[in-house]
């Protein structure tokens, strides 16, 4: 049961990483790319770390300290990674970077 959960969590994390990577490469401007990077760094990494904690719990129950350290890392990433993304987007807005709009939406507005 836990085994299945571990596999599911790790695969979900990997999938988010894959999607985020494609997004960083393909999306049109800085804001959307930062959105992808933030998603990948936060959600993907958190799910992956949760899977690792469960895996360690299952296969090496003696090394609880390592699991505890990974959980600490989890909390740290949960707080800092969205803040970093927020700071970058904030800096972009203040520097006057205009967000990308869909081309035909722009035409419609005219």
């Amino acid at each position, binding site marked *: 049961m836990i085994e299945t959960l571990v596999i599911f969590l790790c695969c979900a994390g990997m999938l988010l990483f894959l999607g985020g990577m494609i997004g960083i490469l393909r999306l049109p401007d800085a804001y959307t790319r930062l959105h992808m990077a933030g998603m990948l760094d936060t959600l993907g990494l958190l799910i992956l770390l949760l899977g690792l904690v469960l895996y360690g719990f299952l296969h090496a129950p003696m090394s609880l300290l390592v699991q505890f350290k990974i959980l600490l890392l989890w909390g*740290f990433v949960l*707080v*800092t990674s969205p*803040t970093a993304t*927020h*700071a970058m987007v904030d800096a972009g807005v*203040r520097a006057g970077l205009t967000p990308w709009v869909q081309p035909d939406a722009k035409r419609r507005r005219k």
Partner: protein
Amino acid sequence: MKKTALLAVILTGALLILSMENFPSWGDVQSPASLHLSRHFIEKSYEQTLTPNLVTAVLGDYRGFDTMLETVVVFTAALACFLVIRLPRDVCTPGLFYYRHTRTGLVVRKHDACELPGENPTFERVDSDWPPHDVVVVSTCRMVIPFIQLFGLYVVAHGHYSPGGGFQGGVIFAASYVLLAVSHDLRTLVHRLNERVTHLLSAAGVLLFFGVGLFGMAMGLNFLDYGALEGVLGMSLASGHSLGILLVEIGVGMTVTAALVIIFKLLSSRGTVTEGL
């Protein structure tokens, strides 16, 4: 002048590449390092240095001089930055300088700062290109910085038994101060850790390292022989070695932290250490 510099760079590079010929190839079993040295360190290092971690034994004990002079290099880098970049305090810096009256919020503008006023309770300095601080970033950094500093201390103190040591811990500790300056402003950092403190700290780290070495000589042993700490406060030989390496790591950490903070302060404020970023 430029051509001479280019010539010197090319000559040095050619010499370095030529001297690579004499190196043993990667992973060569016949090289002296694999024949005698590795086995010697693996077998003998514990009984010779009483340090359980092999890497720490090599870095702190066998290569103590190397580590000490690396610390001196970091110190010299900070000193060179200070001497090259720092503007003298009595130079008139042209530009706009803003002061806010704390009671009324009125902002006063000055066109030069031939004499920068010190601490004045009624007026508060404001950066000339001052963006209002973002509340999310400020509060997150305020929450995270103590943990980063704790982790830096952990890395310094655990240099014996796990990866880490003075250099890495010092860099982490300095990064927390850089984060403070980025999230608040440079004046907050200078207020917490002014120039006098950082300069004294960087010199004190090197002196601590030298002091541990000289203490060994004073006890009649070799320079940097941590065995000299045996018997101080009734310690055994092993804990004397441990304490010696810990003191040395603390010295390295102090120097690295202070040097990085000095370099950051100078570079981000173009040598004035008043405002920047």
